[in-house]
């Protein structure tokens, strides 16, 4: 629910997607660095890596869909959030899902890539014309083929559970899911560690598991605090005990050429005046909520259930902003040139933020 604008020109559209292709590649490397330094476990990096790969595919599909924006009259234009997130508008991902659901019809109704290329050659050699229409048809074909390949980052990526081990009677699971938050137009990944005291193991429980999935998806809103989500979950499922809940907001993406955010980063990028390909910075925020202890509470007339009490950021009690989380960490990823500008300007708000400086060769330096 922010200001979105269409990208009118095909060249600009292509540049936009090239930028994101680079960013998602670097994201994977940064996750690797975080694993090496022990901030994330191997499983967590695998999970995050899968979502990041999904994002890459999603962007690739969108880049095919809008390859001919502004060039062919029937081609759509990519709507993206230029004021806040720098990412495509959530409506784009809604359309992606709708398109995916009608995949068969589109693939059956169009010619495959080789035939189209063949016809293009004939058009070029025979009629001596640029085969724009055929090129457009091919881009749409490749779009649907990309959708057919699957593993994309959808608007909603339903929960999956990974078994982490047993503590006596309790099974430990890492439940992960992700949404593309439609309020802020950003991909958001959730990781929840929970203990299961139910009779059947959670992912095999045909009654509880679908309920859990629906519940978590319905609660995945950026403006709900982690505490709200965790408490609601704890309350609705008596034999599941959320111990740790983390949420990663990937973005916003800043770029002097594309976005119009306010704040210090805008000035940094303006000063850096970086060439195409290095004119960006990606911020991500990690929220973490940890259960402090558990209490037994009365439920109904006879039952007693375990309820978690969560630790909250002490600054909240001291009158600071109430984050509804135990920790909130921000980090920023950017190429070397904007980083130099950042160090020179040294805006106070960004001094404490961890900075991952990436280079085209794939090296990541942490400051």
């Amino acid at each position: 629910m922010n200001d979105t604008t269409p990208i009118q020109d095909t060249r600009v559209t292509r540049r936009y997607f090239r930028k994101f292709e680079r960013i998602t590649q670097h994201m994977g490397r940064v996750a690797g660095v975080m694993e090496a330094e022990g901030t994330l476990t191997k499983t967590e990096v695998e999970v995050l890596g899968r979502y990041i790969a999904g994002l890459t595919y999603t962007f690739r599909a969108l880049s095919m869909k809008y390859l001919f924006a502004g060039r062919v009259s029937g081609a759509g234009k990519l709507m993206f959030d230029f004021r806040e997130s720098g990412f495509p508008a959530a409506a784009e991902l809604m359309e992606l899902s709708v398109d995916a659901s009608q995949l068969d019809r589109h693939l059956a109704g169009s010619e495959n890539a080789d035939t189209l290329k063949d016809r293009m050659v004939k058009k070029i050699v025979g009629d001596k014309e640029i085969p724009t229409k055929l090129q457009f048809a091919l881009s749409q074909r490749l779009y649907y083929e990309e959708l057919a390949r699957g593993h994309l980052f959808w608007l909603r990526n339903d929960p999956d559970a990974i078994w982490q081990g047993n503590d006596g009677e309790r099974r430990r699971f890492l439940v992960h899911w992700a949404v593309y938050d439609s309020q802020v137009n950003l991909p958001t990944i959730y990781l929840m560690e929970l203990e299961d005291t139910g009779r059947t193991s959670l992912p095999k429980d045909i009654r509880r598991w679908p309920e859990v999935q629906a519940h978590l998806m319905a609660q995945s809103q950026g403006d709900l605090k982690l505490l709200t989500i965790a408490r609601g979950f704890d309350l609705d499922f008596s034999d599941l005990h959320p111990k740790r809940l983390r949420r990663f907001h990937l973005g916003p993406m800043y770029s002097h050429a594309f976005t119009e955010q306010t704040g210090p980063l805008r000035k940094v990028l303006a000063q850096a005046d970086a060439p195409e390909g290095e004119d960006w910075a990606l911020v991500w925020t990690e929220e973490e909520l940890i259960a402090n202890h558990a209490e037994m509470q009365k439920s109904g007339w006879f039952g007693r259930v375990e309820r978690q009490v969560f630790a909250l950021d002490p600054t909240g009690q001291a009158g600071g902003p109430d984050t509804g989380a135990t920790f909130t960490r921000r980090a920023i990823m950017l190429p070397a040139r904007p980083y130099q500008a950042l160090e020179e300007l040294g805006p106070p708000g960004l001094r404490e933020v961890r900075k991952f400086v990436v280079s085209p060769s794939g090296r990541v330096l942490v400051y």
Partner: protein
Amino acid sequence: MSDFDSQIKESQAQVEQAQAKVAELTSRIETARQKMAEGQDISVDIENASLDDVHAHTDLMNANIAELIMGLDDVTAGFQSDFDELRSKTGWESVVGIFSKNRSESMRQERLRTASIDDKLQDLIAKSDTIVSLLEGQLAELEVQKGKVETNLSGTLEERETVVGELEALKGDIQAMDPQIITLENKISVETDAAARTALETELAELNAKYNEMIREEQVKLARSQTLERYIEKGKTWVDSLTNQAATQMVLINKLQTDTKQRVVLYDALTKSLKTAQQQDVAHRINEIGVKTDQEAQTAMAAIGSATNSRMAEMLEAHEDHMVFAREVLEAKAKADERFARRFATIVEKHDSNAYGG
């Protein structure tokens, strides 16, 4: 929803028919051009290429699609009940509330936590997409036809220019002959020698024959130029009509896309705002206090409830940053609506007065 599907099918059939009619008319105009090139009389072909039939069909088709778009309004009216449910208690919850207010409230909270309108939004987008692709198909076809007629026309225009040029040249030649004939006639009237006079008279007869031939040719060229002109007139009207039809399609597409965008954004924002407002603060207060909850929850709920029980518009006003965007979308919608209303005044009227029987 089956109603929507059957309506879509009906519209699809009409679009096909309308396209066939449009193509047929274009091909008639093209045939006329071929015949003309072969020198045949084409006045009948031109008269037969009547636009009325095509227009009647296109109107029918557009009316149907406009109806389809208005019908989406009825589909989306269903969202209202979702919003109401987010704000109030269901029947069963109210019944439970008579016995235990706490139990009733916790039931409501649980329902809130699982509420989601994502599926409905997807459905809305899918439906709107179906209509848009229908319209875009029609638009593309109209543009193809327009292109065909336009190339045809520009060829004809060139041809007419040549014919008119020839006609002018001919007229000049004819006028140039007049003094020649007069001089010859004068010579004959003063000539006394019989042999010379006969020779002069033969010359005059030849000149006259040539003159008449040229006059005849002038008539032919004139007729040809007039036919070409009529043909061009017809072609121009057809291009105008095609342009107009294309504009109508664009208005329809624009209206539909703005509407859908606006709906998705507003419904999504409203649902999420409602969900957040109805549970956020409660969760916070409850957490640290641990067990001493219910009273606290009641007060919090009452406070939030009074804020959220107000109408949809007020709800959005409470979120000022949301409103900025919402206002822009609303303005865009107002514009699209206005264009739509201008073109489809009668249909809107019928729809509003329920003249279609529901």
